[in-house]
């Protein structure tokens, strides 16, 4: 599945996008897998209240299921307008 990062999440992890092999059933399980990888992921995911997540380009919650998902994106709260 493709995992995308935006804004300071992208900067902390050091890349905009990667392909991840995972059997994570929920967004939270995917986050735990990523956090266990390296310090930069731990730094990006340290405070989940400061993050938002989208699954297949729809805003959702961290307990959302990942079954069939092609794309998951992590980013800070949006600041458009």
């Amino acid at each position, binding site marked *: 599945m493709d995992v*995308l990062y*935006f*804004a*300071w999440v*992208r900067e902390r992890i050091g890349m905009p996008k990667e392909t991840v092999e995972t059997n994570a059933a929920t967004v939270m399980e995917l986050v735990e897998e990523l956090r266990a990888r390296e310090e930069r992921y731990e730094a990006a995911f340290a405070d989940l209240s400061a993050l938002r997540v*989208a699954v297949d*380009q*729809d*805003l959702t919650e961290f307990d959302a299921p990942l079954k069939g998902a092609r794309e998951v*994106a992590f*980013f*800070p*709260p*949006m*600041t*458009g*307008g």
Partner: protein
Amino acid sequence: MTVRVQEAAFDLGAEANSFAAGHSDMGAMVTFAGIVRDLAQGDLDRMVIEHYPGMTERALEKIAGEAKDRWGLGDVLVIHRYGEMAPGEQIMMVAALAPHRKDAFEAAEFLMDYLKSRAPFWKKEFTSDGADWVASKAEDEDALTRW
């Protein structure tokens, strides 16, 4: 209904005029434009706006569609830029056409409130001291409860 996400600047007047043309049954058009605001110290060098291609268009179309249905709008226009902008440049605009002004005003406010916290854009401000991502405001999220 038109949603455009683009790097290039736009001409607010020309966009509003062409948007309203041919809608003689609509008595009210409300437009709003967001502008790159300089910092209090007056030292903003530039702003860079990042977005999520694909999701951005989907989110804006959803918000515009909801506004159109809820206020019975004749038409809705949303233009939002990304990339680098200088203080004073226009970042984005919305326009709502309705038979009467109350619906056009309300729809434009709804569009802006939702766009601010539901469309995937992120602003980064650059000054001579460095760069900082603009933090979201709790009041922006609270504004949604109104609708």
